[in-house]
């Protein structure tokens, strides 16, 4: 049969539609953009969502705590050193956890020292004045009785002997009259105080009679087993200052001893601290309360940690965005042009990448002695940091540069720069964002490592770093683990959550995983 055999009359052809023009139907579903697709995949990953929340909390911690904290980084109080963490909730409920106390086992001497504080002022250094006796064998194998108790580190400073000028002394007395809180306690007789050198800082606490036995200050009790006070009895030399005018005061003792500069007075340090900060300095501190405890020189760990974290985060984010910028351009040029340019640029990268970070940082430190160390750290991170980014961008460019759509763009007359940054770069964006995120924890780790080792010192009064906190705490790890605990937990959480977040991003930006989990 030939084609001409079919005879179809013209009339049989009818227009199916004469109204308007026919189009392809518009897609009814919304187009899925790359980022949207990535985000939907990211949302399904529970680990990375958790990590994102943790990162958000840590960032808020780093940003908000230094603003709202009563303490500053430069704050320190030499009496409140090694104070353990205390949270108001736990201490008011009386739960023996996070309440500023520490478990202690000691011999009779130390126990008595702390026990006597509660007897004199009613502010118990030993929690509820409760203790248990335990048997221990000492170094030469003889059994000795030890005391086991919980020590309130906020009260264990006890009473401190301080010198005041006349108007300060007056001001404290006014505070006492107004609030009814006793700050000043009767002064002790200078001739009866213990003379041993080791007690030189604690002399204010000895309000009872002591004697020296084998070079150690030992308590002397009366026949009934009570403490024998060594208060200086009322002399009446200087009525205005030597007495404390509160109700029921019988003028039994002197409350101050006049010296060249003013008055030597015994004050309960906890109450004095409140007075000093609310009445004298008026710096917003209402009571000694260190949520994360204090360091070996009496700085507030919460404030130091959060501002160290802030510095670390700012440094990491700024450096990684600069590295992203430089590395991407460098890698793009390498990958796009290839050939000899690539070869030369790769050799430069090879050399730079092989220089250990320690060498970079120490050479910079030697040469830039005048420059703040933050800047040195910044430069050092920059010198070695962009290399990884360049390598990754280069790989992506090698992958995409010979694809058809690039050829099409070139045929249409797009110049090199347009092809590189408009056509190829967006394809690499997923990998690049992921690597930026994964670089941040590494940078924070190196920063804390360098400050820990003391190669870089970021302490300038108003700033500190997590590594410095760790280094300060390490010698006291056995007795005061809280100094290490909080910085270590912080840095571990930060690194873990950034790694999880970065891994989540990597999976999210990988379109080949689309639909695999459904």
């Amino acid at each position: 049969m030939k084609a001409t055999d079919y005879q179809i009359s013209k009339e049989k052809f009818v227009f199916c539609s004469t109204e308007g023009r026919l189009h392809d139907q518009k897609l009814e579903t919304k187009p899925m953009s790359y980022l949207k697709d990535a985000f939907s995949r990211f949302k399904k990953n529970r680990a990375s969502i958790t990590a994102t929340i943790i990162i958000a909390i840590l960032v808020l911690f780093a940003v908000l705590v230094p603003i709202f904290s009563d303490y500053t980084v430069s704050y320190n109080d030499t009496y409140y050193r090694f104070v353990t963490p205390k949270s108001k909730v736990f201490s008011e409920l009386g739960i023996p956890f996070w309440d500023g106390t520490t478990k202690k086992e000691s011999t009779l001497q130390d126990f008595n020292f702390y026990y006597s504080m509660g007897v004199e002022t009613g502010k118990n250094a030993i929690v509820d004045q409760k203790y248990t006796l335990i048997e221990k064998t000492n170094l030469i194998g003889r059994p000795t009785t030890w005391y086991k108790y919980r020590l309130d580190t906020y009260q264990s400073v006890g009473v401190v002997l301080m010198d005041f000028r006349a108007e300060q002394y007056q001001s404290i007395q006014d505070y006492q009259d107004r609030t009814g809180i006793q700050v000043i306690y009767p002064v002790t007789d200078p001739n009866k105080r213990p003379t041993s050198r080791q007690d030189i800082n604690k002399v204010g606490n000895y309000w009872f009679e002591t004697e020296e036995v084998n070079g150690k200050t030992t308590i002397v009790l009366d026949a009934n087993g009570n403490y024998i006070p060594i208060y200086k009895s009322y002399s009446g030399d200087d009525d205005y200052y030597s007495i404390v005018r509160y109700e029921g005061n019988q003028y039994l003792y002197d409350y101050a001893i006049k010296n060249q500069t003013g008055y030597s007075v015994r004050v309960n340090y906890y109450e004095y601290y409140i007075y000093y900060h609310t009445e004298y300095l008026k710096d917003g501190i209402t009571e000694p309360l260190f949520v994360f405890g204090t360091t070996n020189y009496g700085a507030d760990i919460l404030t130091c940690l959060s501002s160290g974290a802030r510095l670390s985060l700012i440094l990491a984010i700024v450096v990684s965005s600069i590295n992203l910028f430089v590395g991407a351009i460098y890698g793009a040029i390498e990958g796009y042009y290839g050939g000899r340019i690539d070869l030369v640029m790769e050799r430069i990268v090879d050399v730079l990448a092989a220089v250990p970070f320690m060498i970079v940082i120490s050479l910079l430190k030697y040469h830039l002695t005048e420059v703040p160390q933050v800047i040195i750290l910044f430069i050092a991170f920059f010198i070695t940091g962009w290399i990884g980014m360049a390598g990754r961008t280069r790989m992506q460019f090698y992958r995409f540069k010979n694809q058809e759509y690039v050829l099409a763009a070139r045929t249409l007359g797009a110049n090199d720069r347009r092809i590189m940054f408009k056509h190829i770069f967006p394809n690499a964006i997923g990998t690049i964002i992921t690597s930026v995120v994964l670089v941040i924890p590494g940078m924070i780790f190196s920063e804390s490592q360098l400050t820990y080792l003391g190669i870089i010192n970021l302490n300038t009064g108003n700033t500190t770093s997590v590594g410095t906190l760790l280094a300060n705490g390490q010698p006291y790890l056995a007795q005061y683990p809280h100094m290490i605990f909080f910085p270590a937990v912080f840095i571990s959480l930060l690194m873990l959550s950034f790694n999880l977040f970065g891994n989540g991003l990597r999976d999210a930006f990988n379109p080949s995983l689309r639909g695999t989990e459904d």
Partner: protein
Amino acid sequence: MYMFKYILKRLGLMIMTFSIIMIMCFVLIKLLPIVIDVKIGEDANIIRNQLIARGYYDPIPVQFFNYMKRIVLDGDWGIGVNLAEYRNMPVWDVFVKKLPPTVLINVYSSLIAVPIGIALGIFAALKKNKWQDHAISTSVMIFISVPSFVYAFLVQYLLCFKLQLFPTTMYGGYDYFAWSMFLSMLPSVISLSFGSVTRYARFTRAELTEVLTSEFMLLARTKGLTKKQATTRHALRNAMVPIFPMIIGEFISVLGGSLVIEKIFSVPGVGGLYLSAINSSDYDFFMLLSAFYTFIGLAASILIDISYGFIDPRIRMGAK
């Protein structure tokens, strides 16, 4: 023959990179004024005269020529200046004395980490997507993120202070194979192994799962091997190809990265020496140790590449 050429090429590149870094380092160090830091009562002039006699105040190119000549002919890397302990001692001798603790700690930690890490990785891969795998993978994720010094603090606090199993810091002295010395090394060894174990486990798991799903495993099963036989004869062997170079790389990089651990446990090793050299501006020590660490980094990467070629014939042949 190809392999030989490849090694030569890599070695050449490595020597070139190493020389460039060391020359830059040398010039940058020599541009600095010489610091002589002596205690009160000690005479700085003696040291200064000695440095003058050794030509430390000559023009830099002359100094570089002399420096290289001394190293090549006499193995003389200079003398200690500012570190009071090692003043006037040849830095090379001090370095050699400090090397054994660092190396030993790394060897021990590798001995612990390699079997445990690989075993965990294999176990996780065989139990893929079961609870054992999830447990291992999750803990690997956690342990790989936590910085090494946090382990060190944990080990020191729990094992040394609370349980009192080990001394807090490593003992001094040179009797490296005594039992008490070994015990005192253990905390640092354990702290170092944590990170390595997780890295080995993760890597092994990734490699083995990939191999287990490949076609030849199916073939091995179809030709009648049991699952166990197929795994041990075919899967494990192929998975070991990238694992072995990783062991070399890991060992060498740990050698260069144990500075913090060495400080925490006061290991009398190279890391501590490097730190004190940096902090006291003792430039001869700094140069030698910088050369050491640079060399380690370069050697690690080149050894990894070469061992790939030796172990896996496909890589060796395919590169032709």
